[in-house]
């Protein structure tokens, strides 16, 4: 197990040295009713890097991810406190609108959730609601580029008007990524994007993530350590609502400082 991860790390290009902070959270706590789900998380997310959030199930990593574009707003019982900064700006600031925020911080969900519309409609949906394309051609352009960026274009170019729900699981998930890209967000949040996929589809999506980090800041929740090791530059380990450890992925897997991280990496729980 350890050898596997080590091997993966060694294969990878070294971490870019100069990094800009894209998002920053200070003392973020979340309550679901009486229950506290996150206890004061401080974390920095760097621009054009992949940050992986790992940890055993129920540790709060998805909850944390949903804070970053305020998806927790949709859950009545959830109460978020603390500061979350995007480019130094508090995302809970009344001046910053949630719709605007989500246009900048996109999200890909655990289960592929294409809309029951055509592939083309799925991708065009975001640009349409935000009015990003002035003309039909521009919209066409956005759809095609997004599908290309998501590595799906060649597979679906002949059947753009077929329903998105008819694609295979991996294709659906890439469609969802294309849909997110089409809005040209700055940050893409991914909530266990491969957990519903088979290994081959997973590999394709992982490659895609690796490519996407050229242009986007990515935060990915995963419960597969290998995946974290394969795709991320920074890893944050969550445990029971606490941030147990955070650091360069390479460092983390080779030399975890926290006991809980050690246990997790050794496969003691999770």
């Amino acid at each position: 197990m350890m050898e596997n991860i080590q091997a993966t790390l060694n294969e990878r290009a070294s971490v870019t040295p100069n990094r800009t902070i894209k998002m920053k959270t200070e003392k973020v706590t979340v309550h679901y009713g009486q229950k506290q789900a996150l206890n004061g998380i401080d974390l920095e997310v760097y621009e054009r890097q992949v940050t992986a959030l790992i940890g055993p199930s129920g540790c709060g990593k998805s909850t944390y991810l949903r804070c970053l574009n305020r998806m927790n707003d949709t859950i009545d019982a959830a109460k978020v406190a603390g500061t979350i900064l995007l480019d130094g700006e508090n995302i809970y600031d009344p001046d910053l609108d949630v719709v605007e925020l989500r246009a900048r911080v996109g999200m890909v969900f655990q289960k592929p959730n294409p809309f029951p519309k055509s592939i083309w409609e799925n991708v065009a949906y975001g640009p349409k609601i935000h009015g990003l394309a002035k003309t039909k051609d521009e919209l066409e352009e956005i759809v095609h580029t997004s599908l290309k960026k998501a590595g799906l274009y060649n597979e679906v170019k002949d059947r753009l008007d077929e329903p998105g729900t008819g694609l295979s699981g991996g294709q659906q998930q890439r469609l969802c990524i294309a849909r997110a890209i089409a809005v040209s967000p700055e940050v893409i949040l991914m909530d266990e994007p491969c957990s519903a996929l088979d290994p081959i589809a997973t590999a394709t999506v992982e490659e895609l993530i690796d490519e996407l980090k050229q242009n986007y800041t990515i935060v990915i929740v995963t419960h597969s350590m290998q995946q974290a090791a394969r795709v991320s530059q920074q890893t944050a380990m969550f445990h029971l609502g606490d941030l147990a450890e955070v650091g360069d992925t390479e460092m983390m897997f080779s030399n975890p400082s926290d006991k809980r991280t050690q246990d997790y990496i050794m496969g003691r729980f999770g």
Partner: protein
Amino acid sequence: MSTFTIIAIVLLIGAIGATLGFRRGSALRAEGGRKPHSRPVYHASYVFTWGVIPALLVLSVWLIASPILNELNVRGDFPEGAVAEANLTDDLAYGIVESIGSGLRALPESERETVTAETPIAEAVPLFRQYGVPVASASADWMIPLAIERNAFQDISRWAMTLVVIALAAIGTFHGYRGIRTRLRARNKVESVVNSMLVIASSIAILTTVGIVISLVSESADFFARVDPWTFFFGTVWEPRFAAAGSGGAEGQFGLIPLLAGTLYIGFVAMLVAVPIGLFAAIYMAEYASNRVRSVAKPLLEVLAGIPTIVYGFFALVTVGPFFRDLSAQISGLLTGDYSAFIQAQSVLTAGFVMGIMLIPFVSSLSDDIITSVPGSLRDGSLGLGATRSETIKKVVLPAALPGIVSALLLTASRAIGETMIVVLAAGVAANLTINPFEAMTTITVKIVQQLTGDLEFTSPQTLVAFALGITLFVITLCLNVYALYIVRKYKEQYE
């Protein structure tokens, strides 16, 4: 012996058998040796079943068959030509014989003997009337012997039935009791009887539908034998004259079109009111409302569904209708100076509007179910892209829920078409063919009620037309319902 007494005796025999069966079962258990298959309570039920069920089955068959046999027998004895001579049909003649028969039964013992087969009818009828049994004037002398014969048949049949049924109960009980032994699988036997009763109970739903179809089809076939289906389905004039039965020719016209138009028009107005209100209410409750608002608003709207339609009808009649009429008078007064109402108190608008109010909760609760069953992941997907709530609802949730909502609307439309009491009180009875919603129109259901209340003659087209209207109504709503239920099923499967 009255039927109730017979049933009571059968049950009593069964109960005695059950007690004995229980004892026997317990005794088997006490004897030791091999343990009996079933517990004593099943032995008791086993004996009871044997005693009661065959007896009651025979009883019910007998009760149904005996009057039929009696009628056949009496009809066979009708003197040749006498029925035609009195200008009667066989049915009517038998009806008179029946009433003479019950007249005879109403007489006290002493006077009954004075009426014999030779008594002229003119003497007997006043006697019957004195004891509260009227007999039709078309009665004839030859009917009295037949009535006596009928009564005798009835008496014999009842005695025989009493004997046979009670004997059967006793034999059955005895047989059941004799059958009890250690290895008897009483429980399984009782359970299979229970099981078949369950099957019978669930076939009642089918029997009901069959009953509806047969009654509608047979009576409307009778109607279509008298009135050309073409003139019924495509006739534009509804004017059934209430001519005397059997006087062919002056039967009036039975055009369905004005009624169908009224039905659809009123239903359309109702949907115009109910759909936007119900749909928006459902959307608000499913997507926006907090739990507290929902827990208050939903039951309040559902109260509307619990109010009987007759109350809506009255509301339309005394409140909404006059309100529209006065309102229109005011409006026309303001515009032209002439205070004459252009909306009639009974109008398409009134009936449709009130029906719309009634339908709001149907639309809202059906759509609410449908909207909430759209998976949350789709909402998340849209919100995660930065769509507002209303954009998410309009562009993702509603399109996804569309089939379900369509079927909800179809079910609502079917209810609007079949609604009766509101239109009876608020739509009027004049079969107009108009496009002015301020005038009165009438509906299929109103005409069914109108043709089937009052004196009925199952031989005149004026009565029978109601069945033709009924079958039209049934077919229309059946299609809407079945199609709607089919869509819902498909829709539910999609998200399960």
